[in-house]
C-alpha cells in the first residue's frame, strides 16, 4: 500500500463558535486531484486549515510524510502551499512583493529584507504572475489598488511560486470570470505546462461549482463537519450531490 502524503486520522475539532468537525479521517496520496464539495459552513475551510497545520485538532492526528505535524521541520512544512479563501495578502505591499513572499520558505532573511526594499529579483514572481494571466502593469501596484480578480490571481501566484508538492486551495475561483476560471483550473490541475513552471502534483480544491469537476480524479463531499462521501470521480452520482446540497 502506498504511504499517504497527508493523512488525517480520527480528527475532531471544535472552534469558538461551537462548529465541530467530528472524527474525520482522510488520506491524500501523491498525484491525486481532489475536489472538496459542500455547502457554506460544511467545514471545508476548517478541514484545509487542519491539513496545512494552521489549526491544531482537539483529538486525532495530522501527519505529513508519515510524521506528526508538530515534529516536521520548516523544509518539510514548506511542501504544502495554501490558497486561502480570504486571500490573506499583505495590503501595503505590491503585487510582486506579495508573490515573492511565497519564496520566504526557500530563501534567507536577506531575501525577505531585499523584497521589502524592492531590490530583490522578481523574475520568478513575474513568471508565475504571467502564468496566472496577470498583466505587467499591475506587478508593482499595491494590493489595495487592484481589483478582486487580480488579487485572487496574486494569491494563486504566491502559492504556486512556493513550488510545493501539495496545494490546498479554498475556493480559488472566486472573483474570476469564466475564461479565467477555466485557465486557472487547468493551471492548478496540470502538473506540466507550456510555461515550464512547476505546479504541485497533489491538489485539493474546495469549490461550489459542479461544472468544474472535469480533471479531478477524486471527489469528497462534506456536510455539517462530516465527510459524507469520498469516491473516485467516475463513481460520482447525482444522489451523492443531493446528500450534501
Amino acid at each position, binding site marked *: 500500500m502506498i504511504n499517504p502524503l497527508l493523512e488525517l486520522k480520527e480528527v475532531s475539532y471544535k472552534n469558538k463558535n461551537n462548529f465541530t468537525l467530528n472524527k474525520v479521517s482522510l488520506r491524500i496520496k501523491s498525484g491525486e486531484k481532489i475536489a472538496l464539495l459542500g455547502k457554506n459552513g460544511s467545514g471545508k475551510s476548517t478541514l484545509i486549515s487542519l491539513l496545512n497545520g494552521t489549526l491544531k485538532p482537539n483529538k486525532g492526528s495530522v501527519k505529513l510524510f508519515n510524521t506528526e505535524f508538530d515534529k516536521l521541520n520548516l523544509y518539510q512544512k*514548506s511542501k504544502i502551499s495554501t490558497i486561502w479563501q480570504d486571500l490573506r495578502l499583505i495590503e*501595503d505591499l505590491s503585487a510582486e512583493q506579495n508573490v515573492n513572499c511565497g519564496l520566504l520558505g526557500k530563501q534567507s532573511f536577506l531575501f525577505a529584507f531585499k523584497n521589502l526594499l524592492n531590490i530583490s529579483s522578481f523574475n520568478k514572481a513575474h513568471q508565475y504572475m504571467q502564468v496566472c494571466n496577470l498583466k505587467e502593469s499591475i506587478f508593482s501596484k499595491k494590493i489595495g489598488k487592484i481589483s478582486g480578480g487580480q488579487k485572487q490571481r496574486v494569491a494563486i501566484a504566491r502559492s504556486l511560486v512556493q513550488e510545493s508538492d501539495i496545494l490546498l486551495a479554498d475556493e480559488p475561483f472566486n472573483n474570476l470570470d469564466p475564461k479565467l476560471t477555466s485557465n486557472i483550473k487547468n493551471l492548478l490541475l496540470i502538473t506540466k505546462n507550456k510555461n515550464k513552471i512547476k505546479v504541485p502534483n497533489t491538489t485539493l480544491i474546495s469549490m461550489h461549482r459542479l461544472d468544474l469537476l472535469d480533471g479531478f480524479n477524486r471527489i469528497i463531499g462534506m456536510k455539517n463537519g462530516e465527510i459524507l462521501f469520498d469516491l473516485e470521480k467516475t463513481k460520482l452520482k447525482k444522489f451523492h450531490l443531493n446528500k450534501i446540497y
Partner: protein
Amino acid sequence: MNKLKLNSSSITFIPILVCIPIAYELFINFHIGGIELLKEFIISALNPKINNEIIFTLVKRLNETIFIAFSSWLISMIFGIIFGILSSEIFFKILNLPIFLKRFLNLFLTFMRSIHEMIWGLILMQIYGINFSIGIIAICIPYIAINAKVFSDQIENINLKTVESIKQINGNKYSTLITLVWAPVIETFKNFGLYRFECAIRSTAILGLFGVGGIGTSIFLSFQTLNFRELWTYLWGLAFLIIISKELLNKFNLSNSSKKFLTSIVIALFCIGLFSLSFFVYFIFYKNGIPFNSINNLLISNLNFNSYDFLKLLLETIVLCLLSTGIAISFPPIFILILNNQIGITIIRIISFLFRLIPPPVLILLLLMFNDPSISLAAITLGLHNAAITSKLLLANLYNQDNKQYIAMKSLGIAKRSSWLFGSFVKQANSYLAYCAYRSDIIIRETAILGVIGSVGLGWQLKESLSSFAWEEVLVILIAYSSIAIIGELINGKIKSNLT
C-alpha cells in the same frame, strides 16, 4: 419629567464648571504688582530686540536646539521602532517566546513613558551635571517608550489571518517577522514619526529652561532679567524653527518618494542611531561616570516625608490634572461657539498659537507676576497651553469636514451658533473627546513641570528632594508620578475605547 441624558457634545461643555473654583482662587490671590510688567511683556512681543549680538546668540541657540531635538528624535525613533516590535504580540507569536517577557517589557516601557522628560532631565542633571547629552538622554527616555507604544499598537493591528498565511509559508522566523511588520512600521513613521520632531523641539525648549542648553536656556535667562524684548526675540526664533521644520517635513512627502529612497533613509538613520547610542553609552559609563557626585548621598539618604504632606501633594497633583483637563476640553468649543465668525476664529488661532509657543513654565512665571502660587494658577497655565493644542485640532477637523448639515440648518433660519453646534460640532464631538482623553495623558505628565515652577503638587516636592539629594524621596515621588500616569492612562484608555 424627562431624565437628563448626556451625550458627547454636552460632556464637552460641562468641564467649563472647573472655572468656578479656579476663578475664585485666582480672584482672592490677585494683586496688581505685576500689571506693568505684563504690559511690557505684551508690547515687547511686537518690538523684539534685534541687533548683531542677539542674532548671533539666537542662531547659536537655535543650532543647539536643532542638535538636541534632532539627535533625541532620531535615537528615540530608532529605538522606539525596535521596542515597538519587541513589545508586540506578533513578535512573541512568531518567535514562540514566553508571553511574560512581553508583559515585563511593557511594564518597563510604561514606567519610562509615565515620567515627563523634564523630570528625567532634572534627575540626570543632578547626577551628571549640565550638558547637551543630558538633554538628549532625558528626551529619549520617555520618547522611546511613547514611540514604542505607538508602533506596537499599529503592529498589533495587523490582521492575524495574514500572520497565519505568512507563517504557513514556513520561512525562517525573522523573514516572516520583518515581512509582516515592515508596512505598519513605515506607515507609522510617515504619519506619526515626522510629527514627533516638532514635539522634540518643544521638549528641548522646555528642558532648556532648566539649563540643558538651546533656546530654552536663553528664554529663561531673559525672563530672569525681565528683558522681555530679548525674550520675544528668542520666542519668535523658536516659532520660526517650529514653522520651518513643519513645512520642511510636509515637503518631505514620503509617499511620493521611491521605496528604494525611503529604505535607504531608514537604513542610514538606523546606522546613525546605533552610532549615537554607542556614543552616549560611552559618555555615561566611561567619560562622566566618575563625577557621580551624589553617590554617597544616595547611599545614606533616608525618607523624611511627612505622610500627610505627601498625600496632600499627591491630591494636589490629581486636582491639578483634573482642572487643567477641564479647561483643555471645554475652552476650545466654547470660544469657537462664542466667536463664531471669521474675525473671531482668526483671533482664536492667533491666541492659541501664542499659548502653544510660550512654554508653560514661562507662562506660569508671567501669571505669577500678579497672582500668588496656587493650584488654580498652575491649572489655568497648563489648561490654556493644552487648550491651545486641542483647539488647533478641533479647528482643523471642523474645517476639513463636510458642512452640508450646517448649511442646511442655516437655510432653515436657525441661528448661526445653534447651526454650528448641531450642524458642525456634533459630528466632531466624539473624536474630539477621544483626542482630549489622549491629551489628558500628556497633561498628567506635564503637571510635573508646573509643579516645579509653580510650587504645587509633587513637582515642588521633587525639586526639594533633588536639591537635597534625597534619592529615596525622589524614588517615592517617581513611583507616585508613575502610578498617577498609569492609572490615568488606563482610565483614558477605557474612555477612548468607548468613544471610538
